[in-house]
């Protein structure tokens, strides 16, 4: 089996390094960051923290080098999905492409370029500490499911099995929208609030007025999910309160707050923007998500 990881940032690197340990899988890592790619080609891809791994994926920044693959795993930031799949689609003419990205709309973008798309949500997280080296912060489950009828569940199971054997526990399910929307609602309801106020997750949640705003955002997201017949696999409210505990993620600065502090474009279009878009398609009003979306876009515009 040949798998190409498209976008080898922290999450992509976790998949690439672990999968490359399997005897029956050939792994390619495609990324535009030349230093990272060169380091992987030279020294391998090293994970530290939650697991100690040195993987040996093939790494390239040149999409033309990619051979035909059975699977793609797209792990870029959501705003890079289009260009990334446009460059690599040729490698998946006979394969399936899974997204493990944040947000809504990635599947649609992939489906515009490739035939068979797998919806996915992943919880493992980490950060690149230097080229070729990734700090593995959080282990967690990945859920994959067919995007539409063109992908047989058996194919999804084949990819899930490889990931699981590689130490990335992955479930194949018929409808993967539940975990996806649970994560999107969690992120859309908390990350921008942290980004706009500068507060960590725990400090957002301990202010009853802000926690109330978070609940308002969650309620809109749940209504949009329900209108599509999506059954969330867990209640975002409980997950938000759980994460606010001192021993869990009280001091965690949401990635969007980190993006704003570093003046990097955020994933707001694919979080709150996605909820607004699906809300409109299904006749569900989402005024708070619209407001938050506009405010964070305003923050990005303020950088000129």
């Amino acid at each position, binding site marked *: 089996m040949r798998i190409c990881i498209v976008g080898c940032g922290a999450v992509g690197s976790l998949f690439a390094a672990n999968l490359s340990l399997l005897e029956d899988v050939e792994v390619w890592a495609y990324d535009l960051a030349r230093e990272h790619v060169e380091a992987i080609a030279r020294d391998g891809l090293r994970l530290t923290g939650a697991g100690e791994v040195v993987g040996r994926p093939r790494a390239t920044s040149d999409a033309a080098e990619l051979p035909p693959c059975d699977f793609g795993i797209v792990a870029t930031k959501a705003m890079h999905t289009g260009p990334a799949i446009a460059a690599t689609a040729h490698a998946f003419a006979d394969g399936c492409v899974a997204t493990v990205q944040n947000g809504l709309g990635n599947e649609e973008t992939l489906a515009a370029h490739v035939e068979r798309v797998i919806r996915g949500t992943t919880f493992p997280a980490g950060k690149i500490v230097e080229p070729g080296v990734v700090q593995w912060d959080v282990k967690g489950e990945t859920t994959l499911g067919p995007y539409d009828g063109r992908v047989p569940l058996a194919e999804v199971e084949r990819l899930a099995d490889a990931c699981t054997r590689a130490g990335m526990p992955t479930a194949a399910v018929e409808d993967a929208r539940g975990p996806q929307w649970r994560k999107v609602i969690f992120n859309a309801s908390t990350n921008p609030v942290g980004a706009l106020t500068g507060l960590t997750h725990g400090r957002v949640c301990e202010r009853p007025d*802000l926690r109330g*705003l978070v609940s*308002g955002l969650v309620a809109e997201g749940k209504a949009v999910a329900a209108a599509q017949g999506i059954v969330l696999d867990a209640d975002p409210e409980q997950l938000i309160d759980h994460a606010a505990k001192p021993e869990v993620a009280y001091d965690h600065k949401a990635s969007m707050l980190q993006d704003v502090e570093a003046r990097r474009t955020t994933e*707001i279009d694919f979080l709150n*923007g996605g909820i607004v878009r699906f809300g409109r398609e299904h006749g569900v009003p989402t005024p708070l998500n619209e*407001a938050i979306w*506009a405010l964070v876009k*305003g923050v990005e*515009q303020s950088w000129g």
Partner: protein
Amino acid sequence: MTRVVVAGAGSIGSLFAAHLAQVADVCVLTRREAHAAALRERGLRVSGRSDLTVQLAATADPEALGDADLAILACKATDLEPLAARLAGRLAGATVMTVQNGLGAEEVVAAHGDWPLLSAVTFMSGTRHDDAHVEYVLDTATWIGPFRGTSFEDARRVAELVESAGLKAEAFHDLRPAQWSKLVFNATVNGVAALTGLPHDFHFAETERPSDLGHLVRDLVDEGRAVAEAAGVDLHDDPWEMNVLATRRGHRHFPSMLEDVEARRPTELEPINGALVRAARRHGVHVPLHTAVYRLVKAKEAGYS
């Protein structure tokens, strides 16, 4: 000659003081003695839309103030309570005029003395360069109306005095429609600016894409309009049009709330956004977006204070 005390010498107070000093006997009450000393020694300079340097009296000690015919309280809304307390028992012959943003300034002052009171809102703006130099940026008007123990005639006389000093002013029989127009405008524009870091520029009127800020600005204005209506106030100006006009001038105005947030100072959130949200609750109007903006700015402020 009319005796005028200008209390608070930020940009608005400095603009009033310098212009009025040409036609009245002006004394400036500052918070810091060094500021008063700078004004006494160097005079007060205005650049920009006016070009003048005036000599005037200045003190940081309320006890050193003589009586006056008119006292203009031009501090930030957040500094008004302590300022009014310092003036309690003084300026027995003065009519006192508030020019703070938001709502409630008149009541704060009324609690500290029985002066006749005038309400005012000002649309002029300036940039303070140092203690003795202010730049006059927007030469828009100050609107004045009676509040307690005053008549339209009193408002008109003060407006004439301000006009004779080279500033723009207009008297109103009832200031609330104008005050509320500015309240809704400020609650919307200042809040959005403080959260996004954007000065009040063209982004605030853009409605092309679904995520454009103009949608939010318009929705916030609509909520504010509903509160004004419930409060029985017929807005003098349409805050959305005020927004569009201001952004068309091509001038990137930095609302004070944005400057405060960037300098990590307390903002005028309570007298502006807080006042609007509380008025909405009092009148049973649902304002989810203003509530969200209010909570976000409040939390942002709490994060650095």
